[in-house]
């Protein structure tokens, strides 16, 4: 990148070009007010956003205000697709099966709670599930169902965010690791492998790497890294209509399967132990998958905030420093990009985001940074 690194001061430097960082870059750039720099230690989709099943999942996100946030994001995707291009967003409807009749009460309670914020959930009997999705095993007892759930193609989404952002003048610096962040006379000096960049604002959007980025600002980011391993079948004739617990079929016919959660740091290996277990669970739910060839397995390192809920907003105590880190980046990128843009440029947001602030962790016992 050719620019005078020392004298130029960006309005905003975003660190991390996954689905969250690139969404914020795009949404900010739409206002045509900021000079924006997007930095990534590698390239877009090399990390978590490129190794996901890419659900846009709403209905079982609790508490219901978190479900509500997810629903708004799903709503925005439909419009976003018209602006930045086709990223294969499909609101397929989502089926979350349960195996014991005893779980029906829980399902009904979920439907009641989510109903209060406008997320309509049907609690289905086994026969109703099988009628909707004949490939599901009759072993299930029932399921919760909502039309709000769906999925998208994360490769297209991130690529389209970045393409649109670049068109709006966002500058990108990829394959460039940030090594330190210092605040000098109100300006952030972001040191990278390729020199120092200056910015009035800085947004940490490092996903599973957020903890390291937080350390650079002296802030503890309470997140865990969780490895998820995903199996992909060869392309099959379309036979699954819905996004179902752990399983979905892509436009191209492959079925993505994933259930696992392992805390193994940044280790992105796949293991046969988990692959075999994953396959067994999938066959249990969708018996016809027993006939499918698995052509590939990959793993992604997910990030999970300690209380499971998204963290975004200004970092308490450091003016101009922001964070956006969450487990469900694919579900939430549209709404988080929108709200972060309002926060930075308008100074206020159309939804109250205070419950997503990092502040909620401040009464935790002192953390080692």
């Amino acid at each position, binding site marked *: 990148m050719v620019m005078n690194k020392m004298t130029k001061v960006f309005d905003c430097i975003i660190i991390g070009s996954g689905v969250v960082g690139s969404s914020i870059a795009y949404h900010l750039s739409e206002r045509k007010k900021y000079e924006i720099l997007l930095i990534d230690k590698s390239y877009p989709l090399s990390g978590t956003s490129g190794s996901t099943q890419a659900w846009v999942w709403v209905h079982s996100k609790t508490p219901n205000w978190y479900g509500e946030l997810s629903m708004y994001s799903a709503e925005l995707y439909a419009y976003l697709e018209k602006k930045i291009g086709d990223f294969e967003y499909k609101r397929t409807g989502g089926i979350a099966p349960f195996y014991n009749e005893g779980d029906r009460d829980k399902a009904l309670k979920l439907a009641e709670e989510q109903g209060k914020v406008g997320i309509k959930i049907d609690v289905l009997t086994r026969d109703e599930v099988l009628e909707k999705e004949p490939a599901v095993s009759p072993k299930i007892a029932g399921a919760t169902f909502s039309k709000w759930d769906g999925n998208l193609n994360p490769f297209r989404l991130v690529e389209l965010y970045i393409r649109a952002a670049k068109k709006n003048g966002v500058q990108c610096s990829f394959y460039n690791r940030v090594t330190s962040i210092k605040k000098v006379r109100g300006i952030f000096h972001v040191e990278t492998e390729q020199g120092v960049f200056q910015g009035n604002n800085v947004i940490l959007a490092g996903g599973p790497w957020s903890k390291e980025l937080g350390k650079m600002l002296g802030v503890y980011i309470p997140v865990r890294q969780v490895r998820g391993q995903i199996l992909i079948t060869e392309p099959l004739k379309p036979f699954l209509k819905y996004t179902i617990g752990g399983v979905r079929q892509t436009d191209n016919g492959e079925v993505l399967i994933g259930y696992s959660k392992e805390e193994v*740091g*940044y*280790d992105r*290996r*796949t*293991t*046969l*132990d*988990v*692959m*075999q277990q994953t396959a067994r669970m999938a066959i249990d739910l969708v018996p016809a998958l027993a006939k499918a060839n698995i052509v590939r*397995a990959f793993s992604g390192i997910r990030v999970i905030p300690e209380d499971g809920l998204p963290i975004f907003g200004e970092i308490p105590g450091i003016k101009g420093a922001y964070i956006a880190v969450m487990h469900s980046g694919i579900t939430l990128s549209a709404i988080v990009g929108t709200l972060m843009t309002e926060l930075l440029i308008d100074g206020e947001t159309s939804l109250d985001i205070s419950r997503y602030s990092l502040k909620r962790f401040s009464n935790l016992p002192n953390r080692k940074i």
Partner: protein
Amino acid sequence: MEADVLIVGAGPAGISAALTAEKFGAKVILIDESFSPGGQLRQQTQYFSNLPTGYAPDIGLKVIETLIKHLYASSVQVYTNHTMIGAYKNGMIGVTDGNKTFPILARANILAPGAQEEAKIFPGWTLPGVMTAGAAQILINRESVLPGKRAVMIGTNNFAFTVAKQLHDCGVTIEAFIEEKSQITCSDGILRDELKHVPVWTESTVQIAQGTGQVERVSVHTPEGRKEIDVDLICISNGFTPILEPFVIMDCELTYKKHLGGWVPLYNEKLQTTNPSCFIAGNAAGITDLGPILLTGEIAAISALEEIGILNSEEAEIERRKRWLELEKLENTAVCQARKNLIASSRSRQSPLTKSK
């Protein structure tokens, strides 16, 4: 299943490694995804004289026949139709026979999956009748089937000429060689001479291959203009590149070395990869000539046995050095340079090679 050493790939490198490890007293399991051992040497009918001590010069498939005879006379457990498909959490390699998937517990692994031919892409390259030179060679020499009657060969490297000559001897008319570069790249004068009746179109590229259901003709862009000929076989010889999946599964670091065929696992002078339990041999290491391929199998076996304590370091070092000296005499210069380069770059890292996470 348990063994001291698991070897993945029963081509010349893998078999050589298996026999060496067995000779030094190791319990060895050798697996291959094909229905028979021998790898790509099973269809080499050309003569090899540049072989290590102990090998009689012969045509490739006789060399491997002899090795396979030794293999089955040894205590090595050979499993054909078995594919490595993953690794378990504890580092064990997982293998499938198409029905069952199971672990093989070995104290060291030698990965010798070989190399694959690079594609060459032009409109129509996916038509039946367009195939790699290696595929055509398999058909005539291993399968006793003629892949066509009239052919063009894309590429003029040694392998292109070798296969063209063998096709010609089976009665296939070679209409032309098509070469992008300004001259033939084949370094074997005798081979070139034997095929001097075949026109070589240099600075030429295939524009399109056409046909209904299969290839019927090819249009070539040449400096003299467009040439079109009727053919039913188009062979592509565009060089080889190491097969990497087993190394990726085992989390071995890769590096790019053009003269070793592109991306290749990083290894040291012990032929140890960045995963200390995994050693590399043969074509996968970017080694191309048969003699050196056989020797890398031996070196990898010696290092694997050193790693697990069957050989002590002094013995291992002596045995290794002997073979590296011999290997260098048999190796072509470009590969030798690139290989030394790669080993030197691994030396600058911590020893033993471990991947920084």
